[in-house]
């Protein structure tokens, strides 16, 4: 297959250039326009600092919670056959299909001050919406399928063979999980956690609904960028945007490294 590749590859590149590559370049070009001084100054405002820190914190928490929950879900769905399993499989993957704004709305309708549950919690002083807890709830919902999707195929592939082998060798269920299953899941866990982290970091639709976009309280980095842009502070918005982009790149390359290693 040594056909001439110049024409198809050229066509592909020329269509991808304006679609993917140029927008990425634009961020960095604009961010660097005012020079390094402007850039650091834009990043050092308390609002920008808070937004970035808050975003990283939420992404970290989301990854941890979903790593545990998603692995557990994958284990149960892969290992057990029970009535309603098929339906549950669809439901846990649903967040991928639902628009994030809808997720935000539904969370408000559940936990908000007049929501289904929120109306009873409100008098007790528990108000998860328009607070960091609400942001975490939204992110857990939206990113749930990523962990599951990374771990379940690994478990499915084993079909319980490793566990059976470990049991006959005398390993207790805990020892089997600790020494046999967990190590084989390492690749899946890492890539699942990285994907979750990356998606959480960039989440906008659901966050904007449930956070109330309160600066220095619930404003994540993407919300901050949007707010600054609307206010006309394009340079500040750009600076934070380029930081987000860099973090994403790093995460992405880590992901490639890990999955590449795993397939060796």
């Amino acid at each position: 297959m040594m056909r001439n590749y110049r024409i198809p590859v050229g066509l592909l590149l020329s269509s991808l250039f304006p679609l993917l590559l140029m927008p990425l370049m634009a961020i960095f070009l604009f961010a660097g326009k005012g020079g390094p001084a402007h850039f650091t100054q834009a990043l050092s405002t308390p609002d920008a600092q808070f937004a970035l820190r808050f975003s990283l914190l939420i992404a970290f928490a989301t990854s941890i919670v979903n790593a545990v929950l998603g692995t557990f879900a994958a284990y149960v769905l892969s290992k057990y056959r029970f009535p309603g399993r098929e339906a549950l499989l669809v439901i846990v993957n649903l967040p991928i299909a639902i628009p994030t704004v809808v997720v935000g709305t539904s969370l408000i309708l559940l936990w908000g001050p007049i929501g289904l549950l929120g109306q009873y919690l409100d008098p007790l002083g528990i108000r998860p919406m328009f607070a960091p807890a609400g942001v975490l709830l939204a992110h857990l919902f939206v990113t749930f399928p990523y962990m599951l999707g990374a771990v379940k195929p690994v478990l499915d592939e084993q079909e319980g063979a490793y566990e059976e082998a470990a049991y006959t060798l005398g390993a207790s269920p805990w020892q089997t999980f600790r020494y046999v299953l967990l190590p084989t899941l390492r690749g899946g866990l890492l890539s699942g956690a990285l994907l979750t982290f990356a998606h959480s970091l960039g989440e906008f639709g659901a966050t904007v609904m449930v956070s109330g976009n309160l600066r220095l309280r619930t404003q994540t980095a993407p919300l901050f960028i949007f707010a600054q842009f609307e206010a006309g502070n394009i340079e500040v918005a750009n600076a934070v945007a380029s930081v987000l982009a860099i973090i994403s790149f790093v995460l992405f390359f880590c992901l490639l490294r890990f999955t590449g290693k795993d397939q060796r």
Partner: protein
Amino acid sequence: MSIVLKELSKNYNGLPIVNHINLEIKDGELFVLLGGSGSGKSTILRMIAGLIEPDSGSIQLRGRDVTRLAPQVRDTGFVFQNYSIFRHMTVAENIEFGLRVRKVPPEKRRKRSEELMDLVELAGLGERYPPQLSGGQLQRVALARALAYEPAVLLLDEPFGALDVKIRGNLRRSLKEIQRRLGVTSILVTHDQEEGFELGDRIGVLDRGNLLEVGTPDQLYHRPASQFVATFVGGGNVLVGELCPGGVKLGSRVVLCPPESALPGHLEGARVRLMARSENVEVREDARLLEGHSLGEGQVAEAVFTGSGQRLRLDLPELDGVRCILPVPAYGQEHPQLEAWVAGRPDGHLFQVGQKVAVGLLHYHLLERTGLRSLILVDFVQESRVALDFGLRVSEATGAPATLLAVGGVHERQSDIVARLEKLHSSLLEKSPNLKMCARRGGLSEEVLREVREGRHELVVIGEDEGPSVTRLGPWAQRLLSKSEVPVLLVQQDYPKISRILICSAGGEAGKGDVWLGGRVAKRVGATVSVAHAVSETAEPERKARVRSHLHGAVNSLHAMGVEARARLLDMGTSTSVAQTLLHEIEEGNYDLIVMGMPNKTALATRLVRSNSRPFLFVPLSH
């Protein structure tokens, strides 16, 4: 005894996968469970290891009842077909795993794993990871891992299944040697009979969840009891012969009864299955050189050179009329054929196709007679239960497993048929624990005939109790009767007790099969038998004498079986037809079961069936 299984059973969806298995395995023995796919062999092994819970029965390992124990505490070593080697651990870590979870100190573990790697010929590969090893090496790791903690028993589930032939041979020899050296009691599961023969101290042959026979490889090869084992283990020839005073009659030839296969109740005229392995069929150019029992002159129909010898197919005109179960007769074949294997001669002489040869049997063996495996047709359309109730009683009486068959139309869903059948089946299981079931779709008679073949059933039970009697024995039933190779029992009304049986030999030449089968049923249920033949007053005296002697012979055979019997020479008198005479006798004698030859023209049978509601047993002439 290292391993004792008692009444071990497991069902899936109401079907017995493992059916009341009883087995004792001695210390240090390498026992092979041999069976095809779906025979339940792996299920048994997994139940011993605790990976599957049995429905009933018990498992003892070294005198300890482990039936309800978790797999971790059973102390078994298990080798899986797909290796199940932990990919993220090195070879040494894999081997040490069982010791690690048993909290054995690292230095001891290391020492043990090195010993084992020497044993399985993997010395020096301890630091490798599984993806760097070949399939054969992985299975050696699996074996070492299973042996590391010195388990009470070693269980091997098709351990060579995923390997290519050459590696398989090497590994087999290693396994046998290791097993001998360590003296660990082992069970190996395989579908490969060659493997079973090479490895097994003893072999148990499984078929559809039933342990058919247990024996040494030599016993199973040379003296199998059942036809299944005879054909599954090695091939060869299985012929249906007839017992006669001099031995076994095969066509025009008689061979002596082999001494080791003395049949209980040696019965003249009884059909027996004679098995001869290909290498025990003697082929000579000159009849005077034959050392075994001569089968007369034959002709080479097919000759295949196999290197070390020649595999021949021989036409044997002198065996005409003998039913050949194996080799399976080819379509349009003129004479019965035998398969022979002759060792190559030093002078390189080969037999040629078409060559006339003298054929003999050097060694042969008679297979055990079995109970009637009956197939009961379940009628969901008319909700009729007569066939079911009667058939279950008959199968109970003959001591053989019965199978329920439901045949649905092509427009019905298989799952619907199965669901209905399952419900019925489970309601009957308590009374008949050995009851099996199967569901089919398509034309009634065709599906019944097909199931008879595939399930190796020996009796078909059908019911016809609905509608006016003139519609009975309709087109499908007639098709079944005309094509069935096994007896068909037609039930029209429930007869709770069979105490009087009539064997009609009026429908043409009397088949000995009727007498044999009728006698067998009579013996089991304790019934008396009348053997009847109708002759017209005008028949020649010679014919009458022949009939009389035939009836006399039949009664004698029945007496020999321990059945009370009498002959009835029916004078047709004023009756105009045989049917009328027989009907008169049937009413007069108030019989509970009528046995007759399978009608090639169904007119007589139809007439008899439609005129009364007693059960009829039709026996094919070739039976």
